[in-house]
């Protein structure tokens, strides 16, 4: 096998319409400009698509990319990035997934898969080192995401095969269908499973046994050990190891930072049962992704009740909101069942919960009635209605069919009156967080290139009450330590966007970066890891420039599709309705339009974009982006 060194891994091109398969190594210029994972995916997204491509047409491209560091023994290096033009938003589609797929792909000799075209019958892609086949998937079409993976393993008689799969939601082209691997991991956002379904591609299965060589193996091993200690010694990671992301709930619900009844309240009253401790009676232990010392999810078993017996993994904080606070359900068991259902069907937990909560508020306000909902009582806290809506959305039945196309289309169908209640940006639902008390988060969800989303920047460090000198040292400029303040929050969002663009490109887990503590791994550690793994050298400034390049090419893609400043906005309610519950730092807060706009101006300046949010000629030149599309890969 020729391929040995990490940066020699190849890009695999598959045209499903013609059956043509080819490959080439990732050129060094692409590595040094975009690293891997999300960076390379976003470069290819901009380059492979012509403007206004229909996301569900064979011309859309499905991009799968392992991070540059996939396979190293630290920081959850199993992350894989999935990209395409989003059928949900029409903007950049991009979602990052953990688990074990990316390292396996890499062991097979590939870092990227570029899939175009469409087959007439359901197929799956099987990659066993250099042996690549497009196989008939008629026997797995219709199977849920868990069974699909199991059947592929059984068919190939290999327990070590790792697959990315879609469920019924992807098959039925639900606009926010996800791509899944293992029992828990999902590339949830922006509807990548819908794109996969539109290509009739049920799964991508991979098994690899080639040699993966690192430049300095002994030093890398030692350094990875240090990285693991560095992360597991933080308080956050310790809590995550024990409770998973559910731990966030304890804090946000007490403070009043969690949207409840869609957006009517900012705290769930009588929400004790959703406290993370209550997972213990269902848990048989925790589970981790590849190369992860944090293991942030539970393996849970439901032994009783109508949905038992059931084995599931999670739930994430996201599901606590999606099927708890937002729909006003306050039982852990509801979360566990609903989490299992969305995973089984392969539909994004957050988008699904966001849409159901919105529909419940419309139902309460009389904007929709029993006739519209097919007789379903969409009342707050009605968990059976929640389960039924998940199913109806997945199978596009009745009212489910209306929600299955996402907010933009549903608003058109239901009527303009419904728009005010929709907590969405660029057509994508927001998390169940309530950002009215936290301007940094508010700016982050407004500017995110993929629509309302906390993971493009998650500027959470101002929640930790750190001294401003320390914040200044991290962010290279003034950032107020008061999380209610607008001061310096543009800088914070900008900096975090660059860091996470790089994090998603080297393929490590965000939880194992400054996400959880200010002294947790970031630029310096990334630079060292890249060097020990690949021999490539990047200074902190060079890595920041790469982050800027990745974020800017995403922005260029969106500009080309007609997005601009007008789309970097918050739902009207953020400016109009103050919060009513929680601690004083969270109570009676709304976003000031004037201050928000000032923050946005500052944010564009930091990115060197013009006041309409469009990258300037000089900024493009500085980033070597002035000749795009350059079609290098």
């Amino acid at each position, binding site marked *: 096998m020729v391929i040995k060194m990490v940066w020699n891994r190849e890009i695999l091109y598959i045209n499903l319409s013609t059956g043509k398969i080819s490959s080439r190594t990732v050129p060094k210029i692409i590595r040094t400009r975009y690293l891997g994972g999300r960076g390379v995916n976003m470069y290819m997204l901009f380059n492979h698509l012509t403007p206004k491509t229909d996301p569900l047409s064979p011309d859309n491209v499905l991009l799968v990319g392992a991070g540059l560091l996939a396979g190293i023994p630290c920081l959850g290096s199993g992350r894989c990035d999935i990209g395409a033009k989003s059928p949900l938003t029409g903007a950049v589609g991009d979602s990052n997934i953990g688990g074990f797929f990316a390292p396996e792909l890499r*062991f097979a000799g590939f870092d990227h898969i570029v899939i175009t075209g469409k087959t007439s019958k359901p197929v799956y892609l099987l990659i066993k080192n250099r042996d690549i086949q497009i196989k008939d998937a008629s026997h797995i079409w219709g199977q849920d995401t868990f069974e699909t993976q199991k059947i592929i393993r059984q068919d190939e008689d290999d*327990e070590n095969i790792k697959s990315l799969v879609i469920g019924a939601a992807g098959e039925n082209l639900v606009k926010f269908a996800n791509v899944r691997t293992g029992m828990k991991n999902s590339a949830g956002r922006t509807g990548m499973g819908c794109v996969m379904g539109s290509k009739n591609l049920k799964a991508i299965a991979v098994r690899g*046994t080639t*040699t993966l060589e690192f430049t300095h*193996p002994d030093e890398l091993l030692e350094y*990875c050990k240090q990285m*693991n200690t560095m992360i597991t010694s933080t308080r956050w990671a310790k809590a995550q190891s024990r409770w998973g992301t559910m731990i966030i709930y304890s804090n946000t619900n007490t403070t009043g930072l969690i949207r409840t009844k869609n957006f009517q309240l900012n705290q769930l009253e009588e929400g004790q049962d959703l406290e993370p401790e209550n997972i213990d009676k269902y848990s048989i232990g925790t589970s981790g992704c590849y190369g992860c010392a944090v293991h942030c999810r539970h393996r849970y078993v439901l032994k009783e009740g109508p949905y038992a017996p059931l084995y599931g993994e999670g739930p994430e904080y996201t599901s606590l909101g999606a099927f708890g606070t937002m729909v006003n359900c306050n039982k852990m068991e509801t979360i566990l069942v609903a989490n299992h259902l969305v995973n089984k069907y392969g539909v994004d937990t957050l988008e699904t919960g966001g849409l159901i909560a919105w529909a419940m508020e419309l139902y309460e306000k009389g904007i929709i009635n029993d006739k519209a909902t097919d007789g379903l009582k969409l009342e707050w806290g009605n968990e059976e209605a929640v389960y039924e809506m998940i199913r109806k959305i997945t199978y596009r039945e009745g009212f489910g069919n209306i929600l299955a196309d996402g907010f933009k289309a549903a608003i058109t169908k239901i009527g303009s009156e419904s728009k005010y209640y929709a907590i969405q940006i660029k057509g994508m639902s927001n998390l169940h967080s309530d950002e009215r008390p936290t301007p940094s988060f508010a700016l982050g969800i407004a500017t995110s290139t993929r629509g309302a989303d906390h993971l493009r920047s998650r500027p959470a460090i101002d929640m930790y009450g750190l001294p401003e000198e320390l914040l200044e040292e991290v962010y290279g400029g003034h950032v107020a330590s008061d999380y209610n303040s607008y001061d310096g929050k543009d800088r914070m969002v900008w900096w975090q966007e660059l860091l996470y663009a790089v994090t998603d490109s080297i393929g490590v887990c965000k939880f194992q970066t400054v996400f959880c503590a200010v002294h947790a791994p970031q630029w310096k550690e990334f630079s060292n890891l890249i060097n020990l793994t690949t021999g490539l050298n990047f200074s902190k400034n060079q890595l920041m420039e790469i982050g800027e390049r990745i974020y800017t090419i995403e922005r260029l893609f969106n500009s080309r599709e007609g997005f601009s400043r007008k789309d970097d906005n918050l739902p009207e309610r953020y400016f109009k309705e103050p919060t009513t519950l929680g601690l004083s730092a969270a109570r009676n807060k709304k976003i000031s339009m004037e201050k928000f706009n000032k923050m946005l101006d500052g944010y564009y300046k930091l990115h060197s974009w013009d006041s309409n949010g469009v990258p300037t000629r000089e900024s493009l030149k500085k980033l070597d982006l002035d000749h795009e599309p350059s079609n290098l890969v």
Partner: protein
Amino acid sequence: MRRRLTLQKMLVIDPEKCTGCRLCETACSIHNEKTCEPERARIHITKWENEGIYIPIVCQQCDIPICETVCPMHAVKRDPETHAVIIDSELCVGCRLCVQFCPFGGVGVDDKTKRIIKCDLCNGEPVCVEFCQPEALQYINATTLNMRKRRAAAEKFSEHLKKMLRANY
């Protein structure tokens, strides 16, 4: 092979604590092969993914090693320092009887080199243990108390296997 009577350390596995992260496999392969190929590690995590069961499989450095008993070439020896059961590659002819007979799956064949490979406890500092955050792998003194722990762990191990065979929550 002479049995040592002094205090030894031993590798104890607690599958209930294993999170399936494969840090041990990866670190083992980098340490031993200088490349990242979990396939060629001396420890393996066997998973029943849809049931959430993960079991680390590694040599138990048995007191009466079956691999030694079956080896026709007397290639199986014990390291006097670490008590690890070692295969002398000079003597080994690759008949794979040890692979076949070890009840723990403790011996393997390296697909690339066709050599017999097994855990040698990394000269008394097992790398897998250093990487195992949840302490599913521990390297501890073989005191009576710990022997009991190991026994308990072995019982859990067999419980796990039984559960896996029933595997229908």
